[in-house]
């Protein structure tokens, strides 16, 4: 099985750059002013409460939605350009897939669009996620976890320089989750920059090199995990998250309700 390919030296330009991103829907700001960078061989975790703007940020970065203003770059190229799209892979969380294709047809289609002729990497990923038996079935018959595995496989076919993942572990069985962790480690070692939006704080604390906390459309805290723990004078990322996103006061109010239960 082949997963790696030699890569030339790491560059100075960040792999992903989000600069003063703003996105509003009919006058309501979903994202106000978010800026961060993801470097070579780094895992950057984006955490925040529901509706804080994580997915909007990722969708703007991969060109599914148009930002109202701001600068989005992949390896120095504007994110909406063809060159940029050749350099990143994207694993969505809740976007529909073309469900009337079989898994095999879907992967063949993605390979054709990226111009990938070598099937070695695809075969390796198929074996890792145990997709071989399911490839001839239509995607609409897949479970959520199977779809996620297929999307992860598709996102890695073309040796991306940046990998953008929206809730990568949601829906995966323990075996697939272990495989994905190993895969992310290999990709990090290869120099791929990884941006992951997640709700899983323990996973973020353990695997992310740096973390950005989004709340109400703003990036309210950013830094390496030890740095954030030190700044908020705690040993738990949960507390950092609650305090940075302003949820701690709300939590203490909720305790009263828990008492009624």
């Amino acid at each position, binding site marked *: 099985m082949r997963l790696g390919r030699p890569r030339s030296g790491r560059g100075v330009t960040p792999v992903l750059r989000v600069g003063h991103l703003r996105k509003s*829907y*009919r006058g309501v700001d979903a994202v106000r002013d978010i800026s961060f960078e993801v470097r070579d061989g780094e895992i950057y975790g984006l955490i925040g409460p529901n509706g804080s703007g994580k997915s909007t940020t990722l969708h703007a970065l*991969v*060109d*599914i*939605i*148009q930002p109202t203003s701001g600068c989005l770059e992949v390896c120095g190229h504007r994110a909406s350009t*063809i*060159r940029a*799209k*050749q350099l990143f892979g*994207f694993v*969505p969380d809740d*976007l*529909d*897939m*073309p*469900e*009337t*294709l*079989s898994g095999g*047809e879907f992967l063949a*289609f*993605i390979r*054709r*669009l*990226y*111009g990938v002729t070598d099937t070695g990497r695809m075969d390796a990923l198929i074996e890792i996620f145990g997709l071989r038996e399911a490839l001839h079935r*239509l995607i*609409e*018959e897949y479970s959520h976890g199977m779809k996620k595995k297929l999307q992860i496989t598709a996102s890695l076919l073309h040796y991306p320089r940046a990998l953008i993942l929206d809730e990568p572990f949601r829906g995966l069985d323990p075996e697939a989750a272990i495989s994905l962790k190993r895969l992310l480690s290999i990709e990090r070692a290869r120099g791929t920059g990884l941006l992951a939006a997640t709700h899983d704080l323990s996973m973020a604390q353990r695997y992310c090199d740096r973390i950005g906390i989004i709340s109400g459309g703003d990036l309210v805290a950013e830094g390496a995990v030890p740095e954030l723990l030190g700044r908020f004078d705690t040993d738990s990322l949960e507390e950092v998250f609650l305090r940075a996103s302003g949820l701690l006061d709300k939590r203490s109010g909720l305790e009263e309700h828990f008492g009624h239960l």
Partner: protein
Amino acid sequence: MRNTSAISSVIVRSWSNQAARAVGGRSVLALLCGLLALVAVVFGYFATREFIYPTFSSFSANESAVAILMGLLLTNVSVAVSMLLSGFLILSPSQTALDNLLSTMPVRPNQRVMGYYLPLVIVTVLTTTVLFSPVFVSLLYDANLSLFGALWVAFGLASHLLYVVVLNLAVYLISLTLLTRTLAADQSFSRLTATLVMSASSLATFAIALWRTDFFRAVAPTHHLNVHVVMLRGVIEDGVRPPLFYPAAAVCAVAVVLLLWVLLNRISLLSAPLERPAKPRWLESLPFGRHGLSVYGSQEIKQAVRHPENYLFAAFFVLLSSGLVLSSSLAGFDLDRHVPEVPLIIWFSCSLFAHNSYGRTLPAHWLVQVAPRRRSVWLVAKLAANCVYCGALAALLFVVYSFASDQTTAASFLRSLPFGLLLVLGLTLAGVVLPYSERYPFSSAFSALFGAILGLPLSYVLGRLLSIVPGELAGAAVLTLAAVVVLLIYCADRWKTIVDGSGG
């Protein structure tokens, strides 16, 4: 071109997968499809032999008449093509799973648009060929053509067909781009207006051609839609031309189509990136109840109203009808004398909205998770919502046509209501059995086309049935028929649930 062909082939593949999934392993359905195809072929054969051939072959001997008729037919082909394209383009959802996927892939907007259009061009060309070939064959059957002449005519017609398909698409795309990019108009409004511009330009050319043709003096106007007549005349009339005429004409025909295709490609570069349309504010305030039927019913009506293909097509029907009423009033055209059974035509058009309701909310019906109720409640709500939506649209069209026709009074609406509701139920039944998916561009258009093909004989059979029943028994007959159709819908849904469950 690699990306364009990859997108086209994946769209075609999804259609074939859907068809295979619908028919695969169900011999009854396969047999039914085969039977329908056979009936269509036999019907086409007899229609050609008994009606089309006697009508058109009588002109074969007169070369001028053939040329004039040919010119009018070529213009008429453009009208048919624009109508077919309108249906496909309006029925195609504005945002599909494929759009989302492709927006993250290294694919240019023009490659995506051309990838979508290529299968559309092929399907439109094939459908128009099937529709018009009996007429052209009848017209030229006795024209004493050599094999070369026949091949030349076939080439001329094929290049004309390609020309009008690509030309209509170019008109549509230019209008759409102007509206969305220059005027920053709403996506749905722009699609509707662009479709109307395309249909109106074809209809206007046809009307002008008809007006300026003088059969008695054998004078046919020359315009961009019948330039191929000049090519074909060479074969039909004398066959003697300079040696370079045929290659030059052939090169011209091919070059024009290619140039138009390149133009289409360039314009599609400008097509704006699509975004998920925002939910209209007034729809958010529609009432929701606590009880299963009212919750599902209001949700179904809401879905029917805000479904893009429904409101686009409804607006298209209303605007087209308004245009027809206005032009016939201005031109003093007696609609009642030339178009009988207007109420039935209205009901047939409106019932076409019923076919897609089953597939529209079935796979991801969030209410099923948050408000679990019996499946029969959901089905009843769906039928009620269909009848309300189609009935309301029909009532609106009755009002529009009442300005030009005496057939569309309030009394005639009430008289035709049972027929219309039966037709709505019939098309809903077809929608339960037939495949339907919003996941790919034009998939629902195919479903609608199939619905229309089924709806035509269905409305005829229903009309005949209701006309032979004595007046005093009409009410009971309608109720019985409605009960039978509702029972069939229930059985079909049960059967589909079992089959889908075992397949998944």
